[in-house]
């Protein structure tokens, strides 16, 4: 990562929903161009890492919610484009060029469309107000030591000023985001549940500084929610039926389970896959991932349970190769070679090109020896 990309990445993190960012302040056009170029590079980096989730129905749903909100925003900028990144951490960030990224981790935590709308509305304000551009401008001036009142003062003073700008931007995104949410017919009372959910996540992560900032924002939000007559008129399409919402984001739940397994975040993997299975109990891959979570967390209790999950996957889809492989490995390790052999044979016939094939061929030879 180049230093400029690093600065951009830092700013995107600061602008993320769960952690706080700057007052609206238009950067010079050449700065803006440079920033947009950096944003495009950063997005390319995400694409090249292979972590962007492509699911047509999910993308279409998220875009519909974003456009409904964007209709309430007065801006000459184009409508934001929402993308999902496979990452179990709770993140949402808006790039200055209008691309808004939600992590599967944050989608896993959201309970309904109203909460999703608040996150998108908040990020939209960052985009519409070009907060990142203003912050970037501020960074540039600070690094050149010009144009800022504290330029000749200590580094600490600069940090304090930056923090104030960040907090101001967050409060503006909260305020204006709430107004957009209400104008679009979403239920503002859901915002406090969302923020409390985020707070619990930050507490779990031990992010004490971010916790303090979020608590301050929650306090402000509490004074603003329920103050107007229209605050109870929730007209969102899925209000009162979170099942519809969960069905629409189901692909993100599955992707989050897989991403959480990769990161070794077993609790989140279990939570995502359980949510998914409650919606789609006949999905073989979901049962397989449940089994993977139980097996790979290796806490002693899940070893037998995982066999049940793999067998369920095979009952639903007898030709699901990974479940055959996993069961074969479990029986092989337990010394039940005959049973393992049949699973390994099934795996190799169903997935002859699978990356694990050479390992399985080796185990199979040992079963036959």
């Amino acid at each position, binding site marked *: *990562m*180049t230093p400029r990309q690093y600065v951009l990445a830092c700013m995107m993190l600061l602008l993320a929903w769960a952690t706080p960012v700057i007052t609206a302040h238009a950067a010079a056009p050449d700065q803006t161009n440079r920033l947009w170029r950096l944003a495009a590079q950063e997005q390319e*980096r995400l694409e*090249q*890492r*292979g972590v962007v989730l492509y699911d047509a129905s999910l993308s279409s749903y998220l875009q519909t919610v974003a456009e409904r909100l964007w209709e309430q925003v007065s801006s000459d900028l184009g409508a934001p484009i929402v993308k999902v990144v496979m990452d179990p951490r709770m993140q949402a960030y808006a790039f200055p060029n209008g691309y808004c990224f939600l992590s599967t981790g944050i989608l896993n935590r959201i309970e309904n469309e109203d909460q999703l709308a608040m996150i998108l509305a908040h990020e939209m304000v960052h985009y519409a107000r070009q907060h990142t551009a203003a912050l970037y401008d501020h960074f540039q001036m600070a690094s050149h030591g010009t144009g800022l009142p504290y330029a000749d003062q200590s580094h600490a003073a600069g940090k304090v000023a930056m923090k104030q700008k960040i907090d101001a931007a967050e409060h503006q995104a909260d305020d204006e985001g709430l107004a957009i949410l209400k104008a679009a017919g979403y239920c503002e009372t859901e915002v406090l549940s969302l923020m409390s959910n985020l707070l619990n996540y930050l507490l779990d992560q031990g992010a004490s500084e971010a916790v303090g900032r979020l608590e301050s924002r929650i306090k402000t939000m509490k004074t603003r929610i329920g103050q107007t007559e229209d605050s109870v008129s929730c007209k969102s399409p899925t209000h009162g039926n979170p099942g519809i919402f969960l069905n629409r984001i189901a692909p993100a739940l599955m992707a989050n389970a897989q991403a959480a*397994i*990769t*990161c*070794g*975040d*077993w609790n989140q993997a279990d939570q995502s896959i359980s949510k998914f299975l409650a919606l789609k109990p006949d999905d073989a891959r979901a049962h397989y991932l449940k089994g993977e979570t139980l097996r*790979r967390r*290796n806490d002693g209790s899940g070893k037998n349970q995982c066999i049940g999950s793999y067998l369920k996957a095979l009952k639903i889809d007898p030709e699901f190769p990974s479940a055959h492989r996993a069961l074969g*490995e479990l029986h*092989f*390790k*337990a*010394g039940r*070679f005959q049973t393992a052999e049949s699973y390994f044979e099934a795996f190799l016939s169903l997935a002859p090109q699978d*990356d*694990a094939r*050479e*390992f*399985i061929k*080796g*185990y199979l*030879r*040992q079963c036959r*020896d």
Partner: protein
Amino acid sequence: MPGLTINRSVIAVWVVATLMLTACAGPWNKAPDQLREPPWSITSPEGWMQLSTQESEMLSKDGPYLEYILIQSRSLAQGFRFTNQKLEPDMLPHEAAQVIADNMRSDPLIRQLKWLASEPAMVGGHAGFRLIYSYQDPYGVKIKTIYYGVILPDQFFNLRYTAAHRYYFDKELPAFNQAFDSLRFGMDSKRDSERIPRRLSVRSKDTEHQAGGVSGLTENRFSSIR
């Protein structure tokens, strides 16, 4: 031979390497003929330099940005940088390879990660695994790695060869293969059979060649991915 032509991109790699070396100049010494860090020992490639750290031994000829061999023996309890998964003493080679691969996949600085091979391998006479992968580093340089790993009774041993894909990887591959072939563990190999139901090393000669005969295997493997 196009691979041996020093062109502009190779020069660029050299410039970056020089900057990197200047930045992280450390106590590099001439590598001893025989590198020993019980329980393992290895014959160093001739003329290479060695950097010893608490965690690992690194060998390099032209500088670590261009190519290096890293040898590491770590406690099974030690965590990974990018995943909370843990290695367990009873893991099969494939399961251990999955943990290493997941840690690589979770590295945010790696781009265009491609898995070129994932297979069983004999590592110093023990049943382990071999991964081959390529990726782009943060400077946009394509890097290629051969990673051997094996779970020993109480530790995880790994040995990898990483080099700039263009020119350097193939150039020093024979030196790495020689070093790998010289790897020995000074421990009782019976313990391996206690860990898993049957040892992967108990196999026909044909299989032994496929899993452990690195030179032959490397020939075939690399002719297809060059």
